[in-house]
């Protein structure tokens, strides 16, 4: 079984770390992730840019593009796509195509990455 582990924290506080503090936190976490990687159990790891860089595409007849992160509490996180895009325009296009292809309600939150490590796992 593959598990996604999602990180939540106060982005003001985490964002105010100095480079040294950030490196120290990453070094501590790397002890854990390195062990998982050696065992062939670690898939992609990535870090998101702050929510101020987020854009939300709300599904509907005309997919609506909104500034800011997903902010509803009545919907839940169900999945993640990772798409290589030239810029936001392409990312919005991809999300709008997905929105057209799925008949349900809901949103796609677009978050640019600040760090990406591809990792390798066998699959579920």
């Amino acid at each position: 079984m593959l598990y996604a582990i999602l990180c939540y924290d106060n982005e003001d506080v985490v964002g105010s770390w100095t480079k040294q503090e950030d490196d120290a936190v990453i070094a501590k976490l790397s002890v854990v992730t390195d062990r998982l990687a050696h065992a062939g159990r670690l898939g992609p790891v990535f870090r998101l840019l702050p929510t101020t860089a987020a854009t939300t595409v709300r599904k509907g007849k005309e997919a609506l593009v909104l500034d800011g992160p997903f902010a509803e509490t009545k919907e839940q996180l169900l999945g993640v796509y990772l798409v290589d895009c030239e810029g936001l325009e392409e990312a919005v296009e991809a999300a709008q195509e997905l929105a057209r292809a799925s008949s349900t309600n809901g949103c796609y939150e677009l978050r640019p990455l600040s760090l990406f490590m591809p990792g390798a796992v066998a699959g579920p």
Partner: protein
Amino acid sequence: MNAEPPDPAWIDRTLVCARPQVVGALLRYFRDLERAEEAFQEACLRALGHWPRQGPPRDPVAWLIMVGRNVTLDHVRRQARQQPLPDEALLSELDDAETPLADRLDNADYRDDVLRLLFICCHPDLPATQQIALALRIVCGLSVNQIARAFLVSDSAMEQRITRAKGRIGAGDAPFETPGAVERAERLESVAAMLYLLFNEGYSASGEQVRDRAPLCDEAIRLTRLLLRLFPAEPEIMGLLSLMLLQHARQKARFDADGSIILLEAQDRGLWNRTMISEGRALIDKAVRHRRRGPYQFQAAIAALHASAASPAETDWPQIDLLYRGLEQIQPSPVVTLNRAVALSKVAGPAAALDLIDPLADRLDGYFHYHGVRGAFLTQLDRRGEARIAFDRAIARARTPAEAAQIRQYLDQLASP
């Protein structure tokens, strides 16, 4: 409540980050800046006492507002009645009270609170440096000593300056009513201008000042990020944050070992902060979608093109020239034209660029960069005698030793065959 006690550094950071929202909310409540600041201090003291023992609250901002308000009300009542109330009883009720309070304080409240707090620092009677000093003290919570060092004055001089500025903004005309749409837009514009000034105080430092003043860039970025979170659909705020991030991303590459400026063309691009550049580019991408042009967006778009070039030769000068033309249209200024001339010299050659800036001679005669740029164009045209005169004028108008040193390099190059 978490089971694990939070570490002191986490508490420190949380208090610093919570400050604008908490002081803003307390100011709305008490309508008195001094009292709001004191209430925040009190709340922080309580937090330092309670959080390590009981774990951090779920919503630190709401906790601090609640405690700051209650402790201050308690002081006021005590002074009125000369009769003490037990503090611990008051605090033990907080856990129950915290959740409904957090629910009531939605984004809309915080948004106007933080904007108001920043806006009162932009009082038109205050000169720009005092606006910035006040924002650093009140909104960021920097110590008087830290601010004094950044502005190269003594602690007591800065203390006086801040006290006087606080007196000027007074309580009388502070804008406590919830602003309408037009007023909110005007406030945002003043605040954005002040934040960019704050950023530039840090960015323009060179030599030995960098250590004390570079943190001003971080503070400006932090406040602008907060502002954007509260006003997520404002393209000019996206542009401003993008601009700051793209400029600050070059920090490590901008100075040599002696603290002299390294020009963009000569910078080691490997030292540029890629994360900040990614964020800056993502933000300008977002802003452009709004199709509401503004000066910060143009400047950010130009900075993004520089940041995207793997080497100076790969810079998209035609596009930068176009963006400067756009900026000239909405914000005509000789300095913008001077900047466009640099882009034009790459696209159409130094003669065309020189033609563009010669008419600016009267208005920009006192400006260091005008003579520096003009000297560079003349050098490229091999008009060495005129170039030397232009560089001499630039040195005479240099504001810092680093600027003068930069021009001396050009003069040395002129002297060598």
